[in-house]
Structures are given as structure tokens and as C-alpha cells.
């Protein structure tokens, strides 16, 4: 993923170049990654390697054009959205915190169970995104986690982990 402009980068570096290189790299990965898929399976017609080769080759080509476009100064228009201020500088701290909260949730979900983990996820995200009242955020978090658990597990038969609250609820 493209990282923030640190100022130490060379002058031709642009964040979008990172994404263009990901496209190029993914193309190479597809071509190389399917080399070990054996093609002997099919006598007539094509084996399982042909289409990945086509896609991988196309990705490499697209990646090259993309890199060239970025280097020549081409820019995509950032997507417009109701809650996005297109002129604001990117707030990498918030992005990092949102990522951290989400990955932390994934790490503790099986251990602590849905109710506690989802409460923490909601509370963490709303605080990171600027919730004014922490107590209210915590309250909504617990209510949301408990109702989703009851609705989906008891009502719809979806499997969610009970975790440390096993037996309590």
C-alpha cells in the first residue's frame, strides 16, 4: 500500500505510484504463481494455466501503462462522498488507528467472544472517528453488540463465538 509522503522520497515519487506498482507486481505474481499449476490435466482445449496467463499478462501490461501514466503526471480524481472533504490532507493517524482497532478485533474475537469484541470494535472506531461523548459511544456499543448477538445467534441461527461469556448468555 502507498505510504505517506515523508519528504525524504525522491522528487518523482508519488503515492499513486505505489498502487500502480501493486498492479504491476500482482500481474507478475499471477504469471509466476501459476507456473507450478500442471497443465497436463487437459488434452483437448486448454489447461488451468491458460486464463491466468492471459490475466497476468494483461495485468503486467496495464501496470506498465499505469506506471507510465503516473510518471507523466496523470492523476485519478479522488472519489467524492457525502462525508469526505476532498481538500483535507490525508489523516494517516486515523487510518492507522482504524486499521489497528479492526485487526485487534480480529485477533481477540475467538477468545473474548462476539459481544465483548464487537463492543470494543464499535467503541474504538467511534472514538477514533471523533465521537463527542465517550460514555454514550460505550452504551451504544454494548447495546449493538448484545442485540446483534441475540438477533443473529438466537433468531437467525448464525454462528458467532460466545467466548468468555459462554454460559452467561
Amino acid at each position: 500500500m502507498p505510504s505517506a509522503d515523508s519528504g525524504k522520497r525522491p522528487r518523482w515519487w508519488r503515492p499513486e505510484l505505489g498502487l500502480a506498482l501493486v498492479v504491476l507486481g500482482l500481474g507478475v505474481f499471477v504469471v509466476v504463481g501459476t507456473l507450478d499449476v500442471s497443465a497436463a490435466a487437459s488434452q483437448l482445449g486448454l489447461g488451468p494455466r491458460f486464463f491466468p496467463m492471459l490475466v497476468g499478462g494483461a495485468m503486467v501490461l496495464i501496470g506498465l501503462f499505469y506506471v507510465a501514466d503516473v510518471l507523466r503526471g496523470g492523476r485519478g480524481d479522488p472519489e467524492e462522498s457525502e462525508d469526505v472533504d476532498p481538500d483535507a490532507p490525508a489523516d494517516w493517524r486515523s487510518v492507522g488507528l482504524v486499521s489497528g482497532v479492526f485487526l485487534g478485533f480480529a485477533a481477540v474475537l475467538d477468545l473474548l467472544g462476539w459481544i465483548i469484541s464487537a463492543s470494543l470494535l464499535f467503541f474504538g472506531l467511534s472514538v477514533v472517528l471523533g465521537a463527542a461523548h465517550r460514555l454514550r459511544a460505550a452504551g451504544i456499543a454494548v447495546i449493538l453488540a448484545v442485540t446483534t448477538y441475540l438477533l443473529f445467534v438466537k433468531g437467525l441461527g448464525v454462528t458467532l463465538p460466545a467466548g468468555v461469556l459462554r454460559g452467561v448468555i
Partner: protein
Amino acid sequence: MQLLLDGFAAALTPVNLMYALIGVTLGTLVGVLPGIGPAMTVALLLPITFTVPPASAFIMFAGIYYGGMYGGSTTSILLNTPGESSSMITALEGNKMARRGRAAQALATAAIGSFVAGTIATALLVVAAPAVVSFAISFGPADYFALAILAFTAVSSVLSRSVVRGLASLGFGLVIGLIGIDQQTGQARLTLGLRQLLDGVDVVIVAVGLFALGEALYVASRLRHAAPEVVPVGRAWMGRSDWGRSWRPWLRGTALGFPFGALPGGGAEIPTFLSYAAEKRLARGVAREEYGKGAIEGVAGPEAANNASAAGTLVPLLTLGLPTSATAAIMLAAFQQYGLQPGPQLFDHNPALVWGMIASLFIGNAMLLVLNLPLAPLWARLLLIPRPYLYAGIVVFAALGVYALKASVVDLVVLFVLGLLGFAMRRFGLPVAPAVIGMILGPMAEIQLRRALAIGAGDVSVLVESWVSVVLLLLSGVALLTPLFRRLWARRAA
């Protein structure tokens, strides 16, 4: 006609009416709320609806699709920034009308126009679908492959100002679609040795990652800290002169929206823009003075166009199995989940399902009119939800939907990676729809290609043997080159 009447009989059962009502309500809800749209909602509902009979599930999904188009207009008109991409144009005149105190009239012309357009366009769907089916019945694998190529190129080149960015998005989708066991030979591809990836990446994870988590991360990076400015509104209504000024734009919008929705890569963006431009050019008298300051024609036309395009999208989806929008692509995945393959055969084998769904569109449209005219103030209040809670809630539901698939934490990590991809795509202006379409249509394109080449015993010329495939491939070439021509033209004009 008899089939359609049977369809109404199926759609009018209490259970299916309930699913239609749930669908249109959910659709309006997600259409109004920023950050989530119909594509993601249908994806999140896929695992939950597995126990529901297919006819009911599709009645609900179609309701969500139509409802999303209605709800988007409320946001565009009452909020000072554009909403869903399909109602971006509505915001131009709609929000100005609202600020001049004509919010009720703007909402009314949008809702009634959507109803008129949705009803006419669904009737056109009834007429067009059997015609396309009787034509497509003779399509061979090579024709279907060419059709997929046309969808890929058209979607990639139309949705973005930059073709290379559209194609890059498509490529991401195609690569994701490759992951897992090859259906024909049982060979594992691109699984990185992970057992969890053998079944491929589920469409739910891709849609939720790219749409919900990607949007949440994007919003986190550039959150608008000022509170949203929502124009207060009462009950939606309009007077006699508004009716007089609205009905022609509604019909013109429908005429533009339906064919564009049916074309690969057409979508809702182009017809809404064309309708806006057409109404501007045709404006006379009061309308001409008001244009740019909140003319009702500029709301009526584009809103009709975007609803008609939603009906248009269903023509290629049902008759050819060809999705032309992200929501349609996810509905295609839903058909596959039930072991159904949309296409000419679907009309033969499952007439009850297809016609029940089409009949439910008429019913859903009527329900939406009732939901949106008197209840507009209620929907508007949803816009006041504080954004931190809204996005935190969206992520909680995203995690819930993905975890519910297989109770796998690996899926949550894949979801996060796709969320980062969605974030990067938004930041650098890559359209998301080509990725979703590529992921779902890619594996089908591969099957058709291999089938075609097996028939030709390895001879590549089978791909261009029928005139249908030749025409489709030529059109694909045109789609790719159009932006280039446009640039040359602009240069010559300058």
C-alpha cells in the same frame, strides 16, 4: 402475458409481499445513509438468505436495488453534497431547490418521477426480455466470451475518466476471481498454500471489503468535521405547475435511462447526466431562468433516468447472465449461490422465479411511492446520525456478515486487505464496479473461453467464427479506444 400474470400471483402471496416490503425499506434505508449502498447490502444478505426460497430472495434483492435508487435522491436533495453516484446529478438542481424552500417539491418530483420511470421501464423489461431471449438462445460459448469481454472493456472505460485506472480495477477483480480451485481440473491456483483460500474468496468478502471497509478507511482519512447541513423538510408534495413542468422530463429521462442501463458499461451515471443536459437545453421560460438555481426539470429528468436504468440493467442480467453494474453483479452471484444460471434457459426452466421477480418490481415501485412521499421527513432524520457512530456501525455489520460465512478469522484478515485496496482505489480515483464485475464474471468468461476453444480443438479462430462475436469484439475495441478519440477530438477543437 399469462406468465406475467402467474408472476403477479406468485408475488402477491403474503410472504413474498413481506419480502418485497423488507427489500424496499432496507433499500431506501441504505440509499439514504451515506457510506453504504445497495450492492453491499445485497452482498451482506447473501449468507442470511440461504434458507429462503430463491423467488422470495430475489424479490427482496430487487426491492433493495430499486429502493436504493429512491433513497439516494433524498440524500442528494437534502444534503449539501452529492450522494450515491447515480444521484450525483440530482444534487445539482435538487439541493438548490431545497435551499430555496422547495425541498418538498423536489422530493415529490423525484419520488413520483422514479415511480413513473420505474413502472414504464419495468413494462419495457417485460417486452424486451423475451425478445433478447429468443435472440440469445443461439449464442455459443464464443459469443458469451465476447459478451464478457465487451462488459469488461465497456465498464472499465466508461466509469472512469482514465481507462488505465478502470482496467486496473478490472484486473484486481479478475485476479481475485482466479484464486481457488479450478472448476474444470481441480487444480489449486494462487492460494499461497493457504487451505482457507482453496474455495476462493467469497463475493461477500470482496463486496464488503471494497465498499464498506474501504469507505470507512477513506472517510477516516478525510473526515469532514463540520456537521452535515440538512435542509429541513415537511411532507413531500407538489402543485399543479410542478406537475406540468415534471411529466415531460420524467418521460424523457425514462427513454434515456432504460437503454443505457441495458448496455454493458452504461450504468446510471451517463443517462442521468444526459438527461440533465437535455433538460437544460430544452428549458424555456421560467425553467430557463431557474436552471442552475434549482429548476424542477433538473431533478425530474435525472431521477427518472436513474430508476429506468435500474430496470434496464435487469435485461442483460436475466436474459444473458451479464451484469452491467456492481449490484447486478452481486445479484448474479446470488443466482449462482442457488445453483441457477441466468440466461435464455432461466426463462424456460424457472419461469415462475423470473416472472415473479419482474411482477414484484411493479409492486415494489408502488410500495416505494407510499414509503417515500409521506415518510420523507422520517428518512431525512437518518441523515442526522453522527458520522462516528454511523461508520463504526457499518464496520461492525461488515465484520458480522463476513464472520458469519465460515466463522473464520482468516476471512476477517482478507476483508481488511480488501478494505485497504478499496481505500487506495477511492483515494486514487479507481472505480470499484469493474473489480466486482471482473471478480464475478471472470470465472464465467474463462469457462466459456475454454469451452469455445475445446470445440475448435485449439483453433483460436473459433472465437471470431460467428458474426455475433465479431460485432461484440469490435464494440469492445471501440469502448477501449473511445477515450482516446475523445482526447484527439478535444485537441483538434482546441
